[in-house]
């Protein structure tokens, strides 16, 4: 019995015991777990991975440089003068799918035929959309076909196309497929665009893109590059499972700072008018090689237009070196106004003062200066032996001004030259666009080595001095502005998203003369345009006060061609600078303008005077600006009293008894607006347009009543 119990108890114990195989299995796993844990500890704390291997096991990352957007350049009225935007270059992988088709013995030939058929359609589409001269569908078809035959994977199809065109191209056969099937390769390049083309290009400057530093010293693009450029940013991006790239939040992210916008004082309409007038008057004149125009706002000195045109070897005019701000030269007779201002301000003369004519000969220096033929003509015409200062100014007599200055300052020339310095003519004022290579203005001084016996009288008529057209314009602008000289400036604001960051206000340089002197000078300048050397401006649409000037130009040593005279070459040929400068309307000036033309070397006796092309250009400018300027519009006063306007039959939601509006045919939004705005409540069913309404249109209904509309 006991033995039986013992045996049963063993059987029972054996039943509870796990089977031997299960035990081995369990032990195996136990051992594996120990190994794994050990391995984990080893990898974590002891093992050092090989860096080359690591990069393949970590998610891809790359650093992306974020380019800033270059700021825009705007005109005085906020119109865009320069803007940055990407343009696209289109290339094609002509060999795409070719290999796959060749390997595909089943459908390869059919697929290839299909591809080529699509390529033919693509060629046709490219020709129709791009419409490039000399590039028809056959041209594109040949490129693609040859490219495919010669395994070309990067064939240029179009350059510099805009986004709209790109979208159109992406609709074409093959180009509407992913790149690895259709072969389309798009390269985006940031480009600087100038909507007004050549207009004011020298002032605006030239850059191809934001990183272009080749023409960085030119124009506003160059001067304000540090503000326009902005700051580059950077971001790390990681690859996602879906092969997209997303910002890696664990890494550095530095956003790009877009560039500032630069708002200029230019008025692009005035620039256009000035550009057109100058082109018209010098374009066909083969004696003139170049010209410039500056228009200033009288009150502020802001530059409203600055044109610099030169002819190339084919005679085409293009914007070139900023002559207006950077080419000082002897201005000739326009300088007589500075001389007259000095004489008047110092009380040395009046406009009515009479000067003995003396046949136009400076007796005390007859061997040094030429006889003035204008005085000879005057004597012959009027049979007088005296001439008034204003008449001398009107006919631009050199003799009169030499005589006046010699008599007034002969004993103390420094008094005269120091006054000229006070007009800011001796040095460049800090103008933003003074270019590299610009000359230096100068006024001679009696204590300088080059001062001679004729320097004083030479200065009086605009020789021996060197001033830029901009400086001359600034002086005339001071006369128009009652003697207050404003500093010419061309940038008025630095902006970011339309908000001003920095503003440049008008700067008063100094007072060059009293208001009385300015008025007297204006009277003399008006005389020039009504009866003097600029009579052609008498026909201008508004009265102009101004002065002509014609001066010989200094030739370079190469141009002199062996001659010892700096003004002419060995054949006696000379270059001339013709100028007209003035302001308008004469009695209440708003703009000052200067037009300067430069001739090529001309034979003896041939000339271009300030009263010709420059004055003609000035007249065209005045006429057109006058027509556009609303400030000068004529006011028409009504003869009788105008009746007061009275509201009649106007229904609002406050009006009792107003009628239900007709909303038939309207969309829901318009219908609801009309009903609710009339004081009713709108209820609608359906969608589309109103086909029925209750109550009917025109019915009287109380305010707040429901109007049911049915849309279909």
């Amino acid at each position, binding site marked *: 019995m006991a033995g039986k119990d013992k045996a049963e108890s063993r059987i029972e114990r054996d039943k509870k015991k*796990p089977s031997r195989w299960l*035990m081995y299995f*369990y*032990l195996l796993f*136990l051992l594996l777990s120990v190994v794994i844990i050990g391995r984990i500890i080893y990898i974590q704390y002891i093992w050092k991975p090989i860096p080359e291997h690591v990069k393949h096991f970590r998610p891809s990352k790359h650093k992306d440089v974020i380019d800033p957007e270059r700021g825009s350049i705007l005109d005085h009225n906020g*119109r*865009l003068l320069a*803007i*940055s*935007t*990407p343009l696209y270059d289109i290339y094609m992988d002509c060999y795409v799918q070719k290999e796959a088709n060749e390997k595909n013995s089943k459908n390869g030939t059919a697929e290839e035929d299909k591809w080529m058929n699509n390529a033919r359609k693509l060629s046709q589409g490219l020709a129709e959309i791009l419409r490039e001269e000399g590039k028809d569908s056959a041209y594109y078809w040949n490129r693609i076909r040859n490219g495919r035959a010669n395994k070309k994977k990067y064939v240029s199809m179009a350059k510099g196309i*805009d*986004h*709209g065109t790109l979208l159109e191209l992406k609709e074409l056969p093959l180009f509407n497929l992913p790149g690895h099937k259709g072969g389309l390769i798009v390269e985006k390049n940031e480009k600087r*665009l100038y*909507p*007004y*083309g050549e*207009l004011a290009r020298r002032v605006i400057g030239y850059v191809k893109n934001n990183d272009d530093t080749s023409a960085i010293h030119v124009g506003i693009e160059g001067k304000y590059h540090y503000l326009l450029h902005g700051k580059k940013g950077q971001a790390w991006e990681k690859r*996602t*499972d*879906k092969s*997209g*790239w*997303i*910002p890696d939040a664990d890494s550095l992210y530095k956003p790009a700072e877009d560039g500032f916008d630069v708002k200029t004082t230019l008025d*692009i*309409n005035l620039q*256009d*008018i000035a550009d*057109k007038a100058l082109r018209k008057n010098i374009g066909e004149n083969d004696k003139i090689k170049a010209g410039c125009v500056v228009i200033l706002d009288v009150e502020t000195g802001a530059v409203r237009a600055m044109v610099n045109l030169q002819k190339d070897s084919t005679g085409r005019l293009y914007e070139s070196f900023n002559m207006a701000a950077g080419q000082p030269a002897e201005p000739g007779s326009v300088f007589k106004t500075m001389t007259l201002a000095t004489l008047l301000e110092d009380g040395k003369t009046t406009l009515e003062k009479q000067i003995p004519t003396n046949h136009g000969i400076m007796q005390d220096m007859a061997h040094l200066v030429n006889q003035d033929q204008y005085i000879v003509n005057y004597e012959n015409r009027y049979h007088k032996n005296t001439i008034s200062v204003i008449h001398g100014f009107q006919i631009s007599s050199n003799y009169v001004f030499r005589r006046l200055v010699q008599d007034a300052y002969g004993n103390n020339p420094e008094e005269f030259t120091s006054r000229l310095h006070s007009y800011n003519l001796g040095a460049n004022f800090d103008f933003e666009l003074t270019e590299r290579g610009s000359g230096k203005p100068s006024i001679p001084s009696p204590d300088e080595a080059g001062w001679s016996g004729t320097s004083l009288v030479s200065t009086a008529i605009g020789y021996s001095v060197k001033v830029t057209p901009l400086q001359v314009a600034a002086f005339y602008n001071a006369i128009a502005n009652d003697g207050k000289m404003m500093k010419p400036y061309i940038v008025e604001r630095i902006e970011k998203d339309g908000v001003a960051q920095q503003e440049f206000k008008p700067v008063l340089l100094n007072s060059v003369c009293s208001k009385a002197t300015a008025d007297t000078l204006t009277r003399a300048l008006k005389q020039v345009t009504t009866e003097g050397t600029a009579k052609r401006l008498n026909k201008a*649409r508004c009265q102009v006060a101004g002065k002509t000037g014609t001066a010989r130009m200094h030739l370079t040593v190469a141009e002199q061609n062996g001659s010892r005279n700096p003004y002419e070459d060995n054949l006696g040929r000379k270059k001339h600078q013709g100028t007209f400068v003035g302001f308008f309307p004469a009695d209440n000036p708003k703009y000052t303008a200067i037009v300067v033309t430069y001739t090529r070397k001309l034979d003896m006796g041939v000339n271009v005077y300030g009263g010709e092309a420059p004055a003609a250009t000035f007249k065209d400018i005045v006429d*057109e600006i*006058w*027509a*556009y*300027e*609303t*400030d*000068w*519009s*004529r*006011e*028409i*006063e*009504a003869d009788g*009293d*105008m009746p007061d306007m009275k509201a009649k039959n106007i229904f609002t939601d406050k009006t009792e008894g107003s009628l239900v509006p007709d909303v038939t045919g309207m969309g829901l939004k318009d219908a609801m607006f009309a009903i609710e705005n009339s004081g009713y409540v709108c209820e609608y069913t359906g969608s589309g347009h109103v086909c029925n309404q209750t109550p009917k249109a025109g019915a009287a209904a109380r305010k707040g009543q429901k109007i049911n509309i049915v849309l279909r």
Partner: protein
Amino acid sequence: MGKVTFKKVIESILSGDILLLLRVDRLLPYILVLFALGWINIFLNYKIERTLVEVENNKVLLENYKIYHAQKTYQFVKMGRISTIEEMLENGGSKVGTPEKPAETITTK
């Protein structure tokens, strides 16, 4: 439960009931929560990544619209030049030209 000795631990390891010996069953809710948190973490990361991909795609779209807008603005500005308008009017045979005098204004007494 009696005192946990080394022998018992070894025996329970061999018999496969070590977790019961350690009373891990009491920690089961926490383990489940931990598991759920882990799962939620993975799920959210996945969703965030997908959203970021979408954001990047939308950024590209916005950028394209911006470019399109800039280029259209450029075209409009280009057409707004006085000379261009005059040329277009002339080419179109229009009698409309530039004004010859400023616009007159009517004022009342």
